[in-house]
């Protein structure tokens, strides 16, 4: 069993819809949770970063962590065609050890105009 599970999609939604992307994990030591966005033929870029449980909002993006269920989500409101990309979840037990980050396999998202 992988430490981090993520549905690969693809997920296709109409422009303006609310998108929900999710990951589950098995290691209860994870405390730092990240979402990366990766456009086609590009490197990943950090989108959201959260610590422990709770919600964090940044513009149209909300990251949610439920440590009791070992489940994290990324919500995108008012989705735009420019949001079409692969979204990778990632997590780590430490804040100061990027070498310990475990990445999900990514969900491919397509926003239809």
């Amino acid at each position: 069993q992988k430490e981090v599970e993520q549905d690969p999609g693809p997920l296709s939604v109409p422009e303006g819809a609310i998108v929900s992307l999710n990951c589950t994990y098995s290691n209860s030591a994870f405390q730092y949770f990240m979402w990366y966005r990766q456009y086609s033929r590009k490197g990943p870029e950090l989108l959201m970063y959260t610590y422990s449980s709770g919600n964090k909002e940044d513009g149209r993006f909300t990251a949610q962590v439920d440590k009791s269920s070992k489940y994290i989500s990324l919500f995108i409101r008012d989705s735009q065609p420019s949001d079409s990309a692969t979204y990778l979840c990632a997590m780590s037990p430490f804040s100061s050890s990027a070498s310990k980050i475990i990445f999900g396999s990514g969900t491919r998202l397509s926003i239809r105009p």
Partner: protein
Amino acid sequence: NAGVTQTPKFRVLKTGQSMTLLCAQDMNHEYMYWYRQDPGMGLRLIHYSVGEGTTAKGEVPDGYNVSRLKKQNFLLGLESAAPSQTSVYFCAAGTGDTDTQYFGPGTRLTVL
């Protein structure tokens, strides 16, 4: 300010050939990383470096070697390429903290 750059962008090798991938950063970060990305597997850490002259093994180091002779450069070498090393390779640079990792554009490598 280019951030993290990778050379080459694409490469096709035959089994048994060797090659070196170059990563360069202009952000003056201490930490640099090499990952590979395969379908359904996510990003997996190959090797990393915590500073000039240092290297350490990641999750999947076998078949690869690295060197960090200069702070701004991190080289990934394949001594005898195998088809299993067909992948997209990403380099990253950062402070070592989990919220500061900046990725390059990737190198697509095919081993026939």
